[in-house]
């Protein structure tokens, strides 16, 4: 009788572990930062890519109803595919799109925009990646949709898709 209980408990123990691991198999173990909605953006000051002038983020963002900050770089391949979508967004709507040029060389960035078009109303630079971290981003590309109080309405990790674009258009209208 005692032996039976012993074997039964071992069996139960292993089934328990097996179930937990089996459930765990299906779960993706790559963590993405939670979507923090309605969080206000920390303001930052940076240099414009073309004019070399200093701009404060608050001044640019709070003038417009909605602003999209797009973190991009010329060395990032997904940014290249995303760029066409940004171009259509800037042609279709009057959304204020600000580029944040992440850890890039000026020559390469300018060449990239010459080749694929410039959807950005302003292009701020982030040479050592610190601004991106203070925004809560962790890679390129990443986009933030902000309202006129510098609050984050939507955050898109990875390249924007056409679904994202229709969502953005719906929000800003």
């Amino acid at each position: 009788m005692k032996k039976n209980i012993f074997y039964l408990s071992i069996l139960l123990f292993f089934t328990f572990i097996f179930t937990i691991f089996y459930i765990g198999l299906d779960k993706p173990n790559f963590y993405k930062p939670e979507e923090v909605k309605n969080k206000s953006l920390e303001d930052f000051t940076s240099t414009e890519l073309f004019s070399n002038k200093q701009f404060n983020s608050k001044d640019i963002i709070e003038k417009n109803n909605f602003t999209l900050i797009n973190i991009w770089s010329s060395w990032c391949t997904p940014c290249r595919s995303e760029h066409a979508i940004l171009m259509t967004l800037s042609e279709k709507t009057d959304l204020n799109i600000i580029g944040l040029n992440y850890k890039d060389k000026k020559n390469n960035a300018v060449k990239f925009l010459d080749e694929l078009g410039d959807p950005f109303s302003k292009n701020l630079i982030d040479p050592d990646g610190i601004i991106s971290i203070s925004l809560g981003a962790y890679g390129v590309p990443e986009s933030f949709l902000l309202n006129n109080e510098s609050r984050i309405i939507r955050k898109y990790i990875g390249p924007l898709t056409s679904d994202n674009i229709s969502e953005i258009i719906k929000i800003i209208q």
Partner: protein
Amino acid sequence: MMKLIKFIIFISFFILCFQKLTVANNVSYEVDKISKNLRCLICQGQSVYDSQSDFAISMKLLIKNKIENGETEDQIYNYLKKQYGEWIVYDPEFDKKNLILWGFPLILFIFGGLLIYRKVFIN
């Protein structure tokens, strides 16, 4: 006499060397200490200290700037937790979700203690 002068010169250079070292190390020591407790979000499984990804390099720079601005370790952790969520630090806080995780060892400890007590003192 010559020997003594040589010795003094040697000692003073020796001390000078170390002075530089300690000044430079204070900040970078702090940066290392903090970045060892942070999880890199690009190559998960590595700490920010170990990782060479762009994210980790920028993060170390940010920590360095913050320390030079006089922020404390806890302030930096709290700042990053606010930005990226609690996942970024290796040390999980105690809350409802990980009650079992924190409580289970304690329960086992008490249970084990009771077993030993019964074995030793009652039998």
